[in-house]
């Protein structure tokens, strides 16, 4: 027994460490996708999110989610906490990425506290955790979601949707019915960030199996990581083929977004599939991204990093997929949980962001956006010595 305790603790710490690589992962991805004049503020927001969301979860959120610090005894409670804590910031990252290049930092920090201390813990409570609403109509604990297609990615996605509706697009983005293209400023950073996220996903999903200390659980962990990776591969390839088919060019930002879409889609059930199904799930995930990115633009929902397409659309798809491909999992429980999370998270987020916005103005005005959030909010250029071209 002791040896299992030790092994599962060690494994949770290993998985947690991989997830923390997602902090630089998100930071580099987003810093690469925005214009140089907004890079410092995007990085500041990313660091701030990790700090604030994690501390909020430590002080308040964890007990809301799991009832008490003694929630489990099969591994070190500190390791279990660390693993859970590693998730929190991701939810806010989804939001901050999608509203970047126009959002002020302080109000985002306030929203981070609310998500880290309350909104995310509440969803965890209802799904993976203490399940305080069990046997009420809000009982969505029938959800089968290994590592958070719904709990993390859709939650972040719905919050982001609320934020985008309240904040509106970047100034100048939609003019006279046309979409103004705003290219990424640093493709190596985008690539580095996406690949770090990919690696982090091994910890995210693998660690969510919760144990590695028996033959069965070791197999489950290995299968989970294998399937996670496969879905990423398939998402990249489908994103690649589809953009190439349409434009005869290779668009690496779409390839990487396709991979991330596949990774989100597999997240609900990587331990349950055989080793070939993830190819299909990931490929559809990648295709959904390619299809959704221009769609959101059509509705003038401006999302510089494609977070809605990656996280919300594929969070839903991935959760449904478990119901579709796995006999034992009811697609209705899945649907119920998807809808349940939507009707909880979206209105609460809308209300919170609306309120914050009322007092602190989330959106930088047009002139500030023209000058760049960096100069207004940080007073610091990301690349002061590199001359910016026209």
């Amino acid at each position: 027994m002791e040896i299992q305790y030790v092994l599962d603790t060690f494994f949770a710490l290993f998985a947690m460490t991989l997830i923390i690589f997602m902090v630089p992962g998100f930071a580099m991805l987003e810093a690469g996708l925005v214009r140089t004049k907004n890079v410092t503020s995007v990085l500041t927001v990313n660091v701030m999110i990790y700090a604030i969301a994690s501390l909020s979860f430590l002080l308040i959120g964890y007990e809301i989610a799991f009832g008490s610090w003694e929630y489990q005894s099969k591994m070190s409670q500190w390791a279990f906490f660390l693993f859970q804590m590693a998730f929190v910031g991701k939810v806010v990252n989804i939001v901050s990425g999608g509203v970047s290049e126009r959002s002020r930092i302080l109000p985002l920090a306030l929203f981070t506290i609310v998500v880290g201390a309350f909104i995310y813990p509440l969803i965890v409570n209802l799904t993976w955790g203490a399940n305080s609403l069990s046997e009420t109509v809000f009982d969505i604990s029938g959800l089968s979601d290994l590592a958070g297609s719904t709990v993390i990615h859709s939650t972040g996605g719905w919050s982001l949707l609320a934020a985008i509706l309240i904040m509106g697009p970047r100034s100048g983005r939609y003019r006279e019915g046309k979409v103004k293209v705003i290219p990424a400023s640093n493709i190596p950073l985008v690539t580095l960030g996406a690949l770090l996220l990919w690696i982090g996903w091994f910890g995210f999903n693998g660690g969510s199996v919760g144990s590695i200390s028996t033959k069965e659980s070791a197999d489950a962990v290995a299968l989970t990581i294998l399937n996670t990776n496969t879905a990423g591969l398939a998402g990249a390839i489908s994103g690649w083929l589809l953009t190439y088919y349409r434009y005869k060019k290779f668009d690496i930002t779409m390839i990487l977004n396709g991979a991330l879409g596949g990774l989100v889609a597999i997240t609900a059930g990587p331990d349950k599939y055989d080793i070939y199904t993830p190819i299909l799930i990931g490929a559809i995930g990648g295709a959904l991204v390619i299809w959704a990115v221009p769609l959101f633009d059509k509705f003038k929902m401006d999302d510089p990093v494609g977070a809605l397409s990656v996280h919300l659309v594929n969070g839903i798809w991935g959760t449904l997929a478990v119901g579709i491909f796995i006999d034992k999992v009811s697609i209705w429980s899945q649907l119920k949980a998807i809808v349940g999370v939507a009707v909880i998270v979206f209105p609460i987020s809308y209300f919170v962001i609306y309120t914050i916005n009322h007092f602190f103005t989330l959106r930088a005005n047009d002139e500030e956006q023209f000058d760049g959030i960096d100069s207004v909010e940080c007073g610091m250029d990301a690349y002061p010595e590199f001359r910016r071209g026209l």
Partner: protein
Amino acid sequence: MKKIEAIIKPFKIEDVKDALVEAGIEGMTVSEVKGYGRQQGHSELYRGAEYVVEFIPKVKIEIVVSNDHYLELAINAIKEHAKTGKIGDGKIFISDIERVIRIRTDEENEEAL
């Protein structure tokens, strides 16, 4: 033939270019410069110390026109579309050009424009 050199605020370049094209000016050369003038630079922060960036990014447009008609059209287009009314809008300088050659065709002067 005359050369127009205009120093303008960078975020006006699109508008000014569109206006010039509309006025029938077909060619221009643009470059990034830094300006020093009455407009004050903005202050930046670094590790607890504030400092002022004195040179302000500007865009320089160079247009060579063949006659006074186009000269006035160009000047007006720039004046109108580069103006914000706030300090730092920039200046227009006009000078003389003796000869113009289009490299591709060896055409000279008016024909080269």
